[in-house]
């Protein structure tokens, strides 16, 4: 693509570290939401803040902590970013996550209605920003939090959003997570290839996958702190933040009931456990991470990372009809790759690459079963403790990337030529925006005929959320200087 030829000039030292890495070496993390009270004091605090960049460091200087920061539209206004720059910020950021239309796009109704959120909902404390703290261990995180909290002119909002680190790189449902991610050209790799997208898909000020520079905020006047004197946007990104509660025991009991009702054990005899088979069909990977496209019959008993994080498969060639990995499964919806989006696999892949997001989520709450053993987890009773995912993702165009994926792929009842139902794992199964005369369902393609799992429930609910702008490091300094 033309876009990829022009790249190579991404300035890593100007970019916040979260763009390059999820800081997975730093296993403790906490997100602090804040509001600005005293403008001058807040600016002084911001000016003194040591923001971790994406710049490469030698291996022997591994940091034990990292700090990143993001602002809501209200926050940027409060910090008196000028009118021109504010007007150039995206519609999604300016309007926020909880408009009536976005509630339909994101499936935030019923138990996920912003009215019942823990933070970010209507009438709740106005959020100006989020301070993202990462540390090598719990003690270090406490120390880091203590240092941050002494800031003047800032009110720290409740609740502080703590994360947890689950064994085996798993998320709360018990599946290996975070395997498939796009790589940014010039940030993660210098080589174009599969799963490599133009830096402008995440970073403002760089060419995107269409070979274009999207509109980005510029200030009126000039500042020597900003690139080209007025480029507030370059190196910045839009950060989507949602607190997603996962009903772990509910998901597994539904999978077991469904397996029994549809005689899954008889139809898929190679899978040792029919309940786990149904759940794996919902996800598209086995709990250990092995993709169903490669391992359709049973979970391979191996620790080989090439198997467990295998991301090299395609759908059009390897599994066009979903007999291994169901057409409506979670990973197929999250990225259909070379399938469905166009007849030609190459074209389909090109379309898919216009809708990628960089996921930076972490689990929260204790695991339902301490060691995340699948056999135990899949039979565990609910303990009533809230747990889930602090979903963070980065993109340059919230409407074309995050919201599109959420609405058209995850929650779209017609995705993949299907008729009804959403993503079985995380989707919105409410009928409000779905087909009303067909029950929400999850379809497992099989021989001799498909199995339709009706009565599917919603296993993930939204408990909080907001859209943020993650500025470049020069832009943070500029905000402090105003």
């Amino acid at each position, binding site marked *: 693509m033309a876009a990829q030829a022009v790249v190579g000039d991404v300035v890593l030292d100007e970019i916040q570290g979260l763009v390059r890495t999820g800081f997975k070496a730093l296993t403790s993390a906490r997100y602090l939401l804040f509001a600005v009270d005293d403008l001058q004091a807040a600016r002084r605090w911001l000016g003194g803040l040591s923001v971790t960049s994406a710049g490469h460091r030698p291996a022997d200087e591994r940091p034990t902590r990292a700090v990143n920061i993001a602002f809501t539209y209200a926050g940027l206004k409060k910090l008196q970013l000028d009118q021109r720059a504010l*007007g150039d910020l995206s*519609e999604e950021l300016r*309007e926020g996550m909880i*408009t*009536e*239309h976005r509630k*339909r*796009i994101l499936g935030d109704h019923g138990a996920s209605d912003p009215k019942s959120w823990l933070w970010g909902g209507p009438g709740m404390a106005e959020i100006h920003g989020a301070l993202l703290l990462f540390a090598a261990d719990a003690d270090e995180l406490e120390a880091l939090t203590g240092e941050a909290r002494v800031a003047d002119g800032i009110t720290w909002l409740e609740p502080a959003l703590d994360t947890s680190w689950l064994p085996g790189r798993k998320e709360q449902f018990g599946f290996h997570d975070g395997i498939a991610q796009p790589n940014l050209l010039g940030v993660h790799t210098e080589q174009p290839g599969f799963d490599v997208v133009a830096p402008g898909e995440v970073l403002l000020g760089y060419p*995107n996958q*269409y070979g*274009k520079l*999207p*509109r980005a905020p510029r200030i009126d006047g000039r500042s020597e702190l900003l690139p080209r004197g007025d480029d507030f946007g370059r190196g910045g990104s839009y950060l989507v933040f949602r607190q997603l509660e996962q009903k772990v025991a509910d998901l597994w009991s539904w999978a077991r009931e469904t397996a029994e*009702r*549809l*005689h899954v054990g*008889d*139809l898929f005899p190679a899978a040792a456990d029919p309940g786990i088979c149904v759940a794996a069909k919902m996800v598209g990977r086995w709990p250990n991470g092995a993709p169903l496209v490669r391992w359709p019959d049973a979970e391979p008993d191996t620790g080989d990372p090439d198997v467990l994080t295998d991301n090299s498969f395609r759908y059009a060639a390897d599994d066009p*009809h979903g007999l291994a990995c169901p057409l409506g499964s979670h990973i197929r919806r999250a990225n259909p790759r070379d399938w469905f989006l*166009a*007849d030609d696999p190459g*074209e389909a892949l*090109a*379309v898919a690459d*216009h*809708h990628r997001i960089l996921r930076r989520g972490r689990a929260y709450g204790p695991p339902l079963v301490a060691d995340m053993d699948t056999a135990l987890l899949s039979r565990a009773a609910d303990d009533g403790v809230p747990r889930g995912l602090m979903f963070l993702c980065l993109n340059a*165009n919230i*409407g*074309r990337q995050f*919201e*599109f994926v959420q*609405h*058209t792929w995850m929650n*779209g*009842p*017609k995705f993949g*030529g299907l*008729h009804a139902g959403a993503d079985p794992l995380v989707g919105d199964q409410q009928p*409000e*925006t*779905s*087909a*009303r*005369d*067909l029950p929400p369902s999850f379809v497992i*393609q099989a*021989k*001799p*005929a*498909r*199995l*339709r799992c*009706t009565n599917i429930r919603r296993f993930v609910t939204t408990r909080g959320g907001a859209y943020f702008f993650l500025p470049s490091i020069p832009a943070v300094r500029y905000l402090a200087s105003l």
Partner: protein
Amino acid sequence: MKDPRAERDLTVIAPIRDGHEAKLRAILDTIGDDVRNSEGLPFHELSTVHFMRWVVVPGFDRDGIAMAGPSLVLSTNFDPPRARHLHELVTRAADKLDEIYQHCEGWPPPEGRGPDAVLRYLEDHAADAECFYVGHPWRRRDQIVEEAALRRDLEAELDRLATTGRLVGWSSRQVYEHLRAFADDRRAASKVSYLPARRPWLWLRLALALLAWGLLALVLVIFCVVPLLIKEKLDARRGDADADAAHEARKQNYLQLADREDYLVQNQLTHLVEMKPGLVRHATLRMVLSLIGILARYYYNRGRLGDIPTIHFARWVLIDHGQRLLFFSNYDGSWESYLGDFVDKAAKPLSAIWSNTIGFPVTKALAWAGAKDEERFKTWARAQQIRTQVWYSAYPDLAVRNILDNTEVRRGLVARMNDDEVEEWLRKL
């Protein structure tokens, strides 16, 4: 080209009486807010209607001179014959038509307002579409609805086989035969007539398509190429100013549009643009639209326009003596996904159409660049979109692809199929 037996689109443009626009908008918004339960306008009783909408098209002026006043546009997609559709409208929706059109110029006064007068009014104000597309051609509304019901019952029966454990050990052929017997019983029990899906010959379609392309190339080369390229260069200088204007207009426009979107799996779009002045632009536009119209009728008649698989019905209509271009479409999924398809799959033909209108992103040689400029194109499209006050779909839960699949499922029940075909058929359930 026009075949009255095949005609499926009606556009009626009625000028709004001076000072009545606000009142009319209020009436339409009330109907539009609650189409399903709308009192007085029994949409579900209009058996000939697939889709229907009312839009208030604002007036416009150019350089301070009023060019056209506001008008009310009615657009329907219907089952032919047209006379039956019109008759149904004027008899079944008489009161509501009266409530709406009393705010339009020339509406017959109460004493002379019989069905005949109303019919004449609609006919007098009807406009032809320059270009018309159907994603699921040759299917009457009843067929679409009935085939969806057939699928529902087949799926339920298949569910029953699964929950009773009977799928274990069965071959695809056995499942198929079982469903066929089931459908035979069901058919005897219901009084459904299965309508045939008719298709013109492929060679005819191809020949016409090629002829049309050749014709267009010839005409364009002879008359339009040089002036167009010059005009394009001049337009390019305005590119950034146009983009800034569109960015602002989009901001103003977005909320009132989004307010009418994403309640169902289907959505609507009404889009209104001013033509660039001059005969060359006008001739080029008509040529491109009629070419796409021919292709839509004879070539793109299997569910896709270009490569876009989500359009139920779409049309372009020139209004105000060719000075403005209206675009109506009924499509599946969100605006963002629809416009994304425009950019990814149909940028050239769409650029060839809309590059003749004011403010469109800069093109090269008519069809290149333009809509490929993703962000500017989408911003322009939103900025030029107008609110659809009333919108009705007769089968709001069905995507184009579902409708096509449902027909295949029905046809498979009466076809002779080998084992591979049986497996393919079962995959559609």
